[in-house]
């Protein structure tokens, strides 16, 4: 059904060997999720053998006793297994952290289990590690935090300034968005995808539409492909500018914060002129765009002015020693941990992992736009900021290239979904790799949608840079990750 993904039906017993081979040959796991095929539960492990090679869906039937946990071989799978446990009720044996992850503790009916009425699971209580000792203090922060931020709760165990252990409690905002898609038409699903994590609304719409197009075997016209990249890069620009405003704020650089926010605002206003909404929404549809868009007359001028101001701003930041000093050596993420726990996007690229879906598994018009990939290997907050500096600069170039490639023509081709089909779509969102796996039923309505969001990956990684660090650095470290809670919680 799909050219860029291979389905491999596997036996449970063969999983560990296959996984070890994948890792030994430079591949990685992307995610795991459960779905139901003719009423029978199956789990798909999405494997990425490497740049340019097709993704593989390792599909296994779930025996009645559950599945063995693979988290000890590929630690990043740990969260996916726990999520499947919560949402579908499949048990993973010998899981290193068997606690619930996404659902409120206590009794519940697995929400993604078809016909689960009456099935009640009692999940283990939410367990936080016990840390005891003289002078050890405990601090609970959130879920309602200072200013305007997304809700999440954090527990710190610390002595003086030193953090011994850090435990985030996420998923308080879990809205069950994957189930929200079920029963919708493929066109209606886009509107939901855009609102999974609205600061990446375009990336979500894009990955979703590409999954549908994969299942339907259709290809949008060239003009739509160019527009998709153009909008995606504008989305990256406003997000990265937001990031620098936030990072400047965390390092108490007030003018730097204001300037970042002002540039972000200008980008959002430019987006409104281009596409009718400040956060690019309501634009994509399977097969292309919902309507043709026109660049405003002065677009080139406005973009050039914004780029010039942005360059100046980034130069100012990198000339500010108080800012650079606070970032250097803060929150170091080693390449090993980044790989094992599944870091993605600017975070992995700052720890020396050279991956970017736009280049390695190109979609839309990226083959022609040829994005460069920014890379650092220090793994500290400074490296994370530097990667975004370069990406921001590249994004302007990519928008300019896209403008040059925007030729008149159709913006939507017919995209007739096939009954009982499957598709995979992906996009490199501003925060990293985003995947949509979709299953359509006989009436070509959405039967199952799985979303792998970049912040789900990066929140999994983040605590490893906090244990054993300083209270003083915490806010800067968190800002240097640029995480979204909504994307993680879904």
């Amino acid at each position, binding site marked *: 059904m799909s050219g860029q993904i291979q389905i491999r039906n596997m036996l449970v017993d063969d999983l560990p060997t296959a996984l070890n081979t994948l890792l030994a040959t430079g591949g990685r796991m992307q995610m795991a999720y459960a779905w139901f095929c003719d009423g029978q539960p199956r789990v798909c492990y999405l494997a990425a053998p490497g740049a340019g090679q097709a993704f593989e869906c390792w599909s296994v039937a779930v025996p009645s006793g559950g599945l063995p946990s693979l988290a000890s071989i590929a630690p990043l799978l740990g969260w996916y297994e726990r999520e499947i446990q919560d949402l579908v009720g499949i048990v993973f044996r010998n899981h290193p952290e068997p606690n619930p992850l996404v659902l409120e503790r206590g009794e519940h009916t697995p929400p993604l289990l078809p016909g689960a009425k009456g099935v009640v699971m009692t999940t283990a209580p939410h367990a936080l590690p016990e840390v005891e000792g003289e002078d050890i203090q405990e601090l609970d922060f959130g879920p309602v935090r200072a200013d305007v931020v997304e809700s999440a709760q954090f527990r710190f165990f610390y002595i003086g300034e030193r953090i011994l252990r850090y435990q985030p409690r996420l998923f308080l905002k879990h809205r069950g968005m994957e189930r929200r898609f079920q029963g919708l038409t493929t066109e209606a699903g886009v509107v939901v995808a855009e609102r999974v994590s609205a600061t990446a609304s375009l990336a979500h719409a894009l990955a979703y539409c590409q999954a549908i197009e994969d299942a339907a075997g259709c290809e949008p016209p060239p003009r739509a492909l160019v527009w998709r990249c153009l909008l995606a890069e504008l989305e990256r620009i406003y997000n990265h500018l*937001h990031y620098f405003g936030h990072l400047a704020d965390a390092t108490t650089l007030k003018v730097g914060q204001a300037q970042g926010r002002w540039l972000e605002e200008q980008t959002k206003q430019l987006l409104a002129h281009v596409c009718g909404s400040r956060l690019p929404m309501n634009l994509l549809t399977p097969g292309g765009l919902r309507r043709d868009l026109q660049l405003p007359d002065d677009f080139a001028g406005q973009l050039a002015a914004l780029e010039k101001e942005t360059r100046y701003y980034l130069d100012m930041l990198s000339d500010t020693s108080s800012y650079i000093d606070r970032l250097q050596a803060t929150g170091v993420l080693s390449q090993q941990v980044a790989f094992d726990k599944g870091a993605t996007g600017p975070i992995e690229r700052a720890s020396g992992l050279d991956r970017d879906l736009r280049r390695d598994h190109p979609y839309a018009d990226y083959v022609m736009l040829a994005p460069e990939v920014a890379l650092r290997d220090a793994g500290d907050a400074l490296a994370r900021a530097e990667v975004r500096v370069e990406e921001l600069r590249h994004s302007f170039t990519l928008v300019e290239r896209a403008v040059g490639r925007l030729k008149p023509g159709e913006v939507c081709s017919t995209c007739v979904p096939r009954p009982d089909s499957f598709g995979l779509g992906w996009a490199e969102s501003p925060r990293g790799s985003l995947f949509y796996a979709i299953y359509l039923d006989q009436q070509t309505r959405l039967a199952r949608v799985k979303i792998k969001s970049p912040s789900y990956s990066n929140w999994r990684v983040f605590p490893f840079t906090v244990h054993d660090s300083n209270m003083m650095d915490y806010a800067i470290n968190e800002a240097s990750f640029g995480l979204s809670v*909504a994307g993680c919680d879904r």
Partner: protein
Amino acid sequence: MAFWTLFGLRKGSASTKWPKAVDDHGQQGVLGMPKVLDGVCAEGCEACIEACPTQAIGRKEGASQSGIFIDYGRCITCQRCVEVCPEPILQASDTWALGVRNRDELCWQAALQTPEATELGQRIQTRFRRSLHIRHVDAGSCGGCESELQALNNPFYNLHRLGIYFTASPRSADLLLVTGALTRSMLGPLRTTWEAMPEPRWVMAVGTCAVSGGIAEGGYTCGHGLDNEMPVDVYLPGCPPNPAAIIHALLLLVGRSSQHIHAGRLP
């Protein structure tokens, strides 16, 4: 070494004078809530009703020439109805500032005017001559509403110029501003924050999720809008509402702007 102070001074003020300067709201090009124009529907057509992802559209004798009406408290401005309508009945508009004091005002009502709401406005107005302090709670958003709320403090909107501030402590807050789909896990913290606020206290639901449940309504952890949880003083639909719409709604609360929509009729 960078000279930020100099840089800041040289930049001067980027601040808008809106709403005093009527057109300087910065939202040029933004598509707002769809309008229902007069006209007769095609025989048996229910295209808009079927296309709407949040069940915002209904048909009622007298609501318009075609009977079609929109509950703007449920609208996420996705523009799908406008696209599928074969007649020129549903039309895109640039109306986005839809803050109201009474939820009913967002949906078509036979009778105009709700006098109690006006009175409440006057009572609040006398109290907030000076400044307004806001405590925000994200009760299950997609992050879109926060993105636009955070914009309020950027140099363009510069909320402080209006005497409106965000505060960390609920104890010094006058207004609880709530975003999101009201997930079960956030109800407790939301209520605790509300209870910690001194009376009199006001509550504002920002974004369609908080007003009526929005796109996530019906989810296994989600609610159906803030007024099922606590008394709400101002409702602002939008997905997300833009920063100027949020400012308009804040000024509405303190009696410094006037409502644009009445009994479900757009201006």
